Structures are given as structure tokens and as C-alpha cells.
């Protein structure tokens, strides 16, 4: 199993992985009445997420938007297994999640804290492979394959993360999350701390990864344009405590293009709708 995954990972840049997920196998993620409270001291509770239900299909790209402080990140943390929910359940491939599953990757917003500064870029990316006992030779191949996949030269592997620019560091973090071939990729506002041009480039990196590897992506953002540009469906959360306000289908054709897709009337109509939902209108 591990070996098969590793060899598929090594071929990441060039080949389509064998059809391991087709439509009609049921949703990857099923979220039923999910709720999350936080203790805020003196026995008081604050409800961060009221009640959220939705499905995420295999190979789907789902974005979550909502007003700031709506609990978007909390939802992602519950879905990825980082935080146990207070109410309701999260089914991953039909099974309730108890911890971060083996075939799930997470990319955080703060790449400089999430990368390990004492390891080279290559060692950072190879770490999840090392713990899965992937042979060294496979590790090496996978590292350069995923680096290429995220648009970095394989030579970057010899550097330390902190020697790279912010955008490149986030590419490394994405490469590391891809290294062990996750079927499901969680991204928590991954591009919130890079500049606009880098952001556009990284959006296209993620888009291409999704299109080419047919990986399922669950993407939290506060940027409505970004959500509409990337997603198959946009889940709009209400103000905290969060409920699902609406789910907007985005039927824009793929591959999408920063200039053409974002310039079209359909895109504008969709972003207007999502904006209204976020702002609290109808």
C-alpha cells in the first residue's frame, strides 16, 4: 500500500495517478449537524459553530467563505481531525474521524511557522515519507517531483525554508502536503499572507494540482474572488455562531484563467451573489 502510493507520488508531475476515485462512490466528507463550542474561562462557553451540514464529493473543489470570525477555520479544524467537534459528526469515507487521517494533507496560512527551520526544504518534504518508511530513493524522486509540481526548481530542495521568499515557502508547504499523495487536501487561508501577484500564481498552482491529480480540496478563504475562481461549490457561512447560509454552485469551465475567467460576466454574477450572501443580504 505504502509502496504503491510512493510510486504514484514519484510520478506526480508527469502521469495521471491510476483512477482511484471515481464519481458515484459516495462523498469523501459528510458533515452532519457539526457544532463546536470553546471554553472561554470560568466555565463559560462560546458557540463558534452552531450547526453545519454539507457533503464534499470525490475530486471536488469546495471553498468556504464567510464574514471574518465566522468560524471558517474552526470548521476546517474539525473536518481535518485537528479538533474534536462538540456536536454532530464528520464522516471521512463513511467513517467517523478520530484523528488526522493518513491520507489527508493540511496547508496552514502561516508557512513560516509550519515549515521546520532546522530541516532543508527537501527534508521538510520528505518527512511524511520518512515516517511512512518509504525507501530513500523513492523519497528523493518524490521530493523533486512535488517541487516541480508546485513550480519550484528541484535545486531549491538543498536550501533552508527561511532562505526563501514567502511565496516560495508556501509552495514548499504545499509540496510537503502533496508528497504523501493525500486524497483530501485542506487549505486554511493559505494565501492570506502573500502579495497579490504571488497569490494569483499560487491559486493557479492549486488549481492545476486539483485538475491534474483530481485531489479533493477543501479551501477556506475570506477572499470571495478567490473562492469563486477556484471552487466547484462555494459554501457561505453566516456570522458566528456559524450556520450554512447557502451553497453556491460554480459551473465555470476548467481550466480557468485569471484574466478570462475573472473577466467574464458569469464570474461577476457569481461573485456578486456570494458577496451578497456574505454581507448578509439575500
Amino acid at each position, binding site marked *: 500500500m505504502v509502496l504503491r502510493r510512493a510510486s504514484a507520488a514519484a510520478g506526480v508531475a508527469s502521469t495521471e495517478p491510476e483512477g482511484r476515485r471515481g464519481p458515484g462512490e459516495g462523498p469523501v466528507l459528510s458533515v452532519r449537524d457539526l457544532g463546536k463550542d470553546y471554553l472561554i474561562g470560568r466555565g463559560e462557553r462560546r458557540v463558534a459553530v452552531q450547526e453545519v451540514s454539507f457533503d464534499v464529493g470525490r475530486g471536488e473543489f469546495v471553498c468556504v467563505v464567510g464574514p471574518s470570525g465566522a468560524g471558517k477555520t474552526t470548521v476546517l479544524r474539525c473536518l*481535518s481531525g*485537528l479538533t474534536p467537534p462538540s456536536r454532530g459528526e464528520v464522516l471521512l469515507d463513511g467513517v467517523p474521524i478520530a*484523528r*488526522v487521517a*493518513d491520507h*489527508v*494533507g*493540511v496547508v*496552514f496560512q*502561516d508557512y513560516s*511557522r*509550519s515549515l*521546520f*527551520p*532546522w*530541516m532543508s526544504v527537501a527534508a521538510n518534504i520528505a*518527512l*511524511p515519507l520518512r*515516517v*511512512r518508511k518509504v525507501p530513500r530513493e523513492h523519497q528523493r524522486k518524490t521530493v523533486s517531483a512535488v517541487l*516541480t509540481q508546485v*513550480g*519550484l*526548481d528541484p*535545486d*531549491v530542495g*538543498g*536550501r*533552508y525554508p*527561511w*532562505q*526563501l*521568499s514567502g511565496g*516560495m515557502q508556501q*509552495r514548499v508547504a504545499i509540496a*510537503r*502536503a502533496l508528497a*504523501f499523495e493525500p486524497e483530501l487536501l485542506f487549505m486554511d487561508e493559505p494565501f492570506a499572507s502573500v502579495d497579490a*501577484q504571488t497569490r*494569483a*500564481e499560487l491559486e*493557479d*498552482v492549486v*488549481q*492545476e494540482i486539483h485538475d491534474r491529480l483530481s485531489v479533493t480540496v477543501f479551501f477556506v478563504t475570506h477572499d470571495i474572488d478567490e473562492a469563486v475562481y477556484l471552487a466547484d461549490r462555494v459554501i457561505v457561512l453566516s456570522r458566528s455562531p456559524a450556520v450554512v447560509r447557502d451553497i453556491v454552485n460554480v459551473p465555470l469551465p476548467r481550466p480557468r*484563467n*485569471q*484574466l478570462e475567467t475573472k473577466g467574464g460576466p458569469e464570474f461577476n454574477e457569481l461573485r456578486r451573489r456570494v458577496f451578497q450572501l456574505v454581507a448578509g443580504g439575500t
Partner: protein
Amino acid sequence: MALDVSSQPTLRSAPPPETGRRAPARMLLRQGGRLLGGVWLFALMVALWWLLTEHSTSPYFPPLHTILNELAKVWFFRAAQQDLVPSMEHLAIGFAVAGVIGIAGGALFWRVRVAREALTPLVYFLYVLPAPVLLPSFILLFGIGSFMKVAIIAFAALWPTLLNAIDGMRSVDPLKLETARTLGLSPNRTLWSIVLPAASPQIAAGLRNSLQVAILLMVVSEMVASTAGIGYFILNAQQSFESVDMWTGIIVLGVVGSILNLIFVIVERLVLRWYYGERALQQA
């Protein structure tokens, strides 16, 4: 602007990293200047000592040149073997034991909650005891041999490393631990690959502190109960009115301490290259 990813050129590692590199000649000059800035006062003090004691006839403040002559005579042969070697052995073993137990103890605290809760009061109780106070009981328990000296050195030097290891491991960035979870690292693997390296700068600070304490206890243990060692040499010289010998012992001790500290700093810089590199870049 290449927006289509498939045609986008791959990014090389060229742009940001070379911030730390300057013209070599100017850097050499800067480093030389910094070295000079750290050395002149020290040199001045030595020169003053030399000049002020040059014609001294006081038995308490012999001329520096007499001390240095005697130092060369005594320490390069007889005393080095008789007093310096055993001292250094005790120091090395005691410091190593303290370092290993300190780091392993920190790891135990991080990993095993029962151990953490049970040991915390004990650790803080023993930590506040000044180690020299325990010397009489150590002598009673272990005699006055090498074992007692190594034991008291290890005991006293343990606390700075242990407490820094505990604190450093406890304050590892939670996002790093979460990242480890998302990558599928087991708790033991997380300890080894994430927590220890992340805490290593603070552990190094603790070890450095432990080294100072170890040197201190090395000397103190030799002054209380010993027939050899540098501490014994200094005390014995003072009690038999050999003030020149006493001063040579003090100078040797200072030089040895400085060399050990220097070695420590060099090793630390090499091992924690990533830490100092990252910090220098952040401050640039």
C-alpha cells in the same frame, strides 16, 4: 506575468537568500574591528597589572612576570598532570552526565504526563538548594574520591539544562506540533524530529549555564575534600603562603574556563546554524 501554470517557468532559489553576504574585504574589516573592540580593554587591564606590579615587593601581589614564569614552570609539567587532568576528568564526566540526564528528563516531562506531575515539585525543591550545601552529605555518602566529585558536579549542573529543556519543549510552537500531526508523525517521532530540534536553542543555553556551574562545583569540591585538583592546588598554595603559586592556579582556571566556553560556543554555532541563520535574516 505568467498566469498559466503549465507554461510558467519554475522558480529557482536565486532571489532572496543572499542578504547575509557582503563584499568580503569589507566584512573582514568589520570582523577585525569587532574583535579589536572586544579585546582592547582586556589587554589594557593585563598591561596595567603588569606595570603596577612590576616592582612590587608585597607578598600578596607578586609581579605578573614572576607569576607567569612560575606558571610556565609549574603548570606545563607537574601540576598539569597531577592537578589539571583529574579536575578535567571529573568536569567532563559530571557535565556529560548532567547534560544527558537533563535532556532526557526534559523529554520525559514532555512525553509522560504522570512523570511531569509527579516530578515537578521535587525538581523545583532540589533546584533551589545550593549544591555546595549538599557537599557534606555527598562526602558522607560517597567518601572523598572521584565518584563524589563527579556526583556533586553532575547534580549541580543538572538543573540549568533540565529546567531549560522542560521550558523549551513546553513552549514549542503549537502550529509545529499540529503540522506534525497532519504529516502523520507518531508522538515519539514528534519528540525526536520536532520537539527536540525546536527546543535546541534553549537547551543549548541551559547547557552553557550548566558548564559554568560544573566548573564552579569542580573547584569547590576540590577545596573541601581533596589531595589533588586545581581547586586543591589554589587553596593549598594560599594556606602555605605560596601566593605566586596561588595566582598561577587562578590564571590557569580562568584560561581553562575561557577555552571550554569558546569550544562550547563554536560547537553551538555549528549545530544551531539554522537558528542563527534564520535570526540573522529576520534582523537584516
